[in-house]
C-alpha cells in the first residue's frame, strides 16, 4: 500500500526484533469475544486516479456552474490563489498544535498576526486563535459572559443567525443557562430595542446581537450596548459576514465579539470547515476559551511566540476549564490570515464597497422588505412562492435567495438575497426580472 513505507521483509525484521513471529501476535491479547473475525465489509483500496474520478463524479452531481444569490451566513467571495498556495505548504498543513514553540514559530507567528488582525478589525483588545465556527463561538461567548458576570441568563436577538441560535440553545440547555429571544422591528428589520429593554433583568449575563443581522440589516450596536450595560449585562456582538468589517464601524461598544470568518478565503464547502473567533476587551482575557498565542523571548533574548495562558484550557484545568475545545481551526484561520494580508487595509474596504454596490444595484431593482441599512444582503418578497421563483431561476442556472419561512414563518414569501463582488450584473438582472413578474 502506497501510504505504508515498509517492505514485507522489513516487517519480518521488526517483528523478530519484537520477539514475535507473526503480526497476529501483536493483538493476540485482545479479548477473543471482541475480535473481529472477518474483513471489514468495505471495498478493497483504490488508486489515486480512481479516487479523483470518484469525487469528480460527486462534484458533478452538485450545483457546479450555477450563479448563486445565497448568503445567510455563507458567502461567495473570490479566493486569492495565495491562500491555497500557503496552506498547502507541508510545513503548515502537516504540523500539529504548536506546543513545542522552538519548532513551531511559523504557526505561532502567523496565529499571533491573526489575533492582531482580528483585534484591528473588531476594535477589541484581545482575540483567540480560533473557534470551530461562528455558530459554536456564540454559546462559548455566552458561557464566558456567564463566568464574567456571575449571572445566568442570556438574551438573544431573533435576527441572530437561526442556526447559531439553535446551537446556543443546545449548549445552554443543560448548563442552567436560560436563553430568551427578543424580537425585531417589523419595519426596519432591526432588533426591537423595546422588547430587549423589557426582557433585560438583573440576571441577564449577556445580550447577543448580530450585525449585519440575519436579514442583512445593520444594527444600532450602541443602543443595544447601552441598554445591556445599563442593567449590568455584557453585549456580545456576533458577525457572520466578516467582509462587512471592511466598511462597517467596528463594534467597540461590545464587550465580547463572536464571529465567523468564512468570508475570508474559506470556501463554502457545504458548510465547513470554517473558522470562528472570540475577541473581547482586555479585562476578559483570562476568561477566553480556546488557544492563545503570546509574545515572549527565547533564551537569546530574541522575540519568540508560544501558546500561553493555557491554565484556562482543558488539558490543564480539566473540568474547570473555560471550554472543552482542543483541536480548533488553525489552518482555516491561517487561510483567513493570508486573505486579510492580500487584501490589506485598502483592499478590505474596496471589497466591502463593491459588495455594498452590488447589493444596492440589486435592491434598486427589487424592493427590500425592511428599511434598515444593509450591507450585501437584504430581504425581499418573492412575487409568489419563493419555491416558484427559485425554480424558474434554476432554469437559468441561477440559485435564487433563501426562502425565509423556514426560519421565520411570519415572513410569508420573503427571501434573503445576497450579492457579493462575484455577482454579475447580468445574473442580477435575471433575478430582478424573475421578481418583477
Amino acid at each position, binding site marked *: 500500500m502506497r501510504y505504508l513505507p515498509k517492505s514485507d521483509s522489513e516487517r519480518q525484521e521488526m517483528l523478530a526484533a519484537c520477539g514475535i513471529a507473526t503480526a497476529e501476535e501483536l493483538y493476540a491479547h485482545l479479548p477473543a469475544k471482541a475480535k473481529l473475525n472477518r474483513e471489514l465489509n468495505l471495498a478493497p483500496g483504490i488508486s489515486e486516479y480512481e479516487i479523483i474520478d470518484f469525487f469528480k463524479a460527486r462534484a458533478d452531481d452538485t450545483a457546479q456552474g450555477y450563479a448563486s444569490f445565497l448568503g445567510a451566513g455563507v458567502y461567495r467571495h473570490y479566493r486569492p490563489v495565495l491562500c491555497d498556495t500557503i*496552506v498547502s505548504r507541508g510545513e503548515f498543513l502537516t504540523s500539529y498544535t504548536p506546543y513545542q514553540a522552538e519548532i513551531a514559530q511559523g504557526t505561532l507567528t502567523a496565529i499571533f498576526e491573526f489575533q492582531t488582525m482580528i483585534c484591528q478589525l473588531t476594535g477589541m483588545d484581545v482575540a483567540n486563535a480560533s473557534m470551530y465556527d461562528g455558530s459554536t463561538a456564540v454559546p462559548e461567548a455566552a458561557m464566558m459572559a456567564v463566568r464574567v458576570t456571575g449571572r445566568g441568563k442570556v438574551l438573544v436577538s431573533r435576527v441572530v443567525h437561526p442556526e447559531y441560535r439553535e446551537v446556543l440553545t443546545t449548549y445552554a440547555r443543560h448548563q442552567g443557562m436560560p436563553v430568551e429571544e427578543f424580537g425585531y422591528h417589523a419595519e426596519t428589520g432591526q432588533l426591537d430595542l423595546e422588547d430587549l429593554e423589557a426582557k433585560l433583568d438583573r440576571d441577564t449575563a449577556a445580550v447577543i446581537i448580530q450585525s449585519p443581522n440575519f436579514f442583512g440589516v445593520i444594527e444600532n450596536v450602541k443602543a443595544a450596548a447601552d441598554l445591556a450595560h445599563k442593567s449590568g449585562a455584557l453585549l456580545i456582538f456576533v458577525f457572520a459576514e466578516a467582509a462587512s468589517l471592511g466598511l462597517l464601524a467596528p463594534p467597540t461598544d461590545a464587550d465580547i465579539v463572536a464571529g465567523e470568518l468564512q468570508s475570508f478565503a474559506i470556501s463554502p464547502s457545504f458548510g465547513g470547515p470554517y473558522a470562528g473567533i472570540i475577541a473581547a476587551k482586555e479585562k476578559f482575557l483570562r476568561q477566553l476559551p480556546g488557544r492563545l498565542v503570546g509574545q515572549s523571548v527565547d533564551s537569546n533574548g530574541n522575540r519568540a511566540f508560544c501558546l500561553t495562558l493555557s491554565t484556562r484550557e482543558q488539558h490543564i484545568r480539566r473540568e474547570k476549564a473555560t471550554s472543552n475545545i482542543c483541536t480548533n481551526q488553525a489552518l482555516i484561520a491561517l487561510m483567513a490570515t493570508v486573505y486579510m494580508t492580500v487584501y490589506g487595509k485598502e483592499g478590505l474596504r474596496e471589497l466591502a464597497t463593491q459588495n455594498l454596490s452590488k447589493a444596492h444595484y440589486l435592491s434598486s431593482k427589487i424592493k427590500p422588505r425592511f428599511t434598515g441599512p444593509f450591507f450585501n444582503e437584504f430581504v425581499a418578497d418573492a412575487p409568489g412562492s419563493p419555491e416558484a421563483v427559485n425554480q424558474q431561476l434554476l432554469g437559468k442556472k441561477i440559485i435564487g435567495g433563501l426562502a425565509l419561512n423556514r426560519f421565520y414563518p411570519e415572513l410569508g414569501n420573503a427571501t434573503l438575497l445576497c450579492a457579493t463582488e462575484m455577482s454579475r450584473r447580468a445574473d442580477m438582472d435575471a433575478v430582478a426580472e424573475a421578481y418583477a413578474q
Partner: protein
Amino acid sequence: MIRKVRQHITQNEALLFEESSPGKSGYQLPALDVPAVDPHEALGGGNVRDEIEGFPEVSEVEAIRHFTRLSTWNYAIDLGLYPLGSCTMKYNPRVNELVARLDGLAWAHPYQPESLSQGAMQVIADLESALLEITGMDAITLQPAAGAHGELTGILLVRAYLESQGNPRKRILVPDSAHGTNPATASMAGYAVQNIKSNDKGMMDVEQLAGLLDRDDAHDIAALMVTNPSTLGIFEEDIAKVAGILHSKGAMLYMDGANMNALVGLTRPGDFGVDVMHLNLHKTFSTPHGGGGPGSGPVAIKKHLEPFLPVPVLKKVSEAWHFDYNRPQSIGRVRAFYGNFGVLVRALAYILAHGGPGLRNATVDALMNANYIRRKLEPHYDLPYSSPSMHEVVFSDDRQSANGVKTGDLAKRLIDYGFHPYTVSFPTIVHGAIMIEPTETESKRELDLFIDAMISIANEIEADPKSVLQAPYSTRTTRVDEVLAARRPIVRWKPDRSSSQAAD
C-alpha cells in the same frame, strides 16, 4: 552523533505590520459592473468605519515570502517522524487535498437546493456507512467539528436519552488517565466528574467500578467515559464486562475514540458494549492537523440513542438524499450546517484508498511500529506499565529525572536530533510521561534514527545531564520563556510607542 539533521541558514522575517507601508497592496478587484455606491450615503455616516488602523499593507510578493519564510520555522509530518502520543500524526495524502478542492464540492453552499447537492450528500452518506462498519455501531452524526465537540455531542445524547427515561442523572465517571477534554466535556454538559483510578496494569479497575456501581447513589451515574485503548496505549481488557456493569445500572458506556487507529479492522466498539463514541477523523483517518485544526468528531451510537441525534439527519427518500429536520427528540444542533464537510471528504478519500483489508493492515503496522520502539527503548527508559502496547507506548522519565533531567527537557533535546518531541507529561498518571506514538506511516529507517536518538540522549544524560537542560541548541529560536509569556501576556501586536511617536 546526530545523523538526522544539520544546521542551515533560515530567513528571518518581521511581523506583517512591521513590513507594511501605506499604499502597498497585494490585491486587485475587477472593475465594478454596476454603479459605485457611496457608503456614507447608503449606510449613514455613523455606520462607516475609519481605516483599519495598523492593518497590513503589503504586496503579493511580500505576502508569499512572509508566509513561506515563516513556514520554514515549522516542523511537520512532511519533514519527518512526529511521534506525539494520542495525536496520531500520520501521513496526510495529497490527493485528499485535491478532491476536497473540486469546485462542485468546495463551492457547494449548505442552503443550495437538495436536488443540486446530491453529490455532496452522497459523500456524507458513504462516509457514514463506512464509519458504521468500522465501529460496529448503529447510527452516526458527522456534525461535530472535532473530538471534544463530539464528546459534548455524545454526552448530550446520553443526557437526552436518560432524560427520556425520566432522569438525566448527575455524575460521569472518568478514569484518571483520561484526556482533559473528557472532564471538561462532562462539566459543559452539566455533569459532575468523578475520577476513577487505574489499576497496576494501567487498566480500569473493574472491582472498584463494580463497587461504585453497587453503591446506593449509583443511580445518579450517567456514564463512564473511557478511552480505549487508553492513553497508555493499553487495550481495556475488561471493557465488555465494564459495559455490562454499567448497563445493569442503566448507565451508558462512552468511548473516547481518539485511539481508534489501534482498533480499525481488529475489533469494533459496537461489539464490546459501547453505547456511544466519537471518532477523530483528523487522527484515525488522516486529515491534516494544519497546525491545530480543523478536525471532525463524528459520534457513533447504538440504536437506543438514535432518536436524539442532532438535526438534520441524512435520509434517503425515494432515491434522493434528504436532510430530515423532523426529529422531535433531537438534542438540537451542535453546529451550523452539516459539520466540517471538507474534512469528511478527506476522510472518505483515505478510507477509499486503503479499503477494508488495507485499513486493517495499516492498524497492524501502527501496532508493530509502537512495539518495535517499545522493545528497543525498554533497556533505556522506565516502562511503568508492562501490559501489551497497542499503537503507542508510554515510558516515564524516572531514570533520567534521577539525574535532574525531566521529560520536558529530554523532549527539547530530541529536537536537536531532528525529531518532533513525543507527548510530554501526559497521561498524568505516569509521572514524567514520555508518550510515543509513531503511527504506521513511518519507515523502519526513520524509527531506527529515532531510537538511536533516544538512546543517545539517555547516554548524554548519564554522562552530562546539565548539557541537556539548555536544549534545543540547533533551532533559530532557542528555548522560549513560557513563564514570561503567561506572566505578562502580549497577545497582539501594537505599534512600538517610540516608533509610532516618531511617525507622528
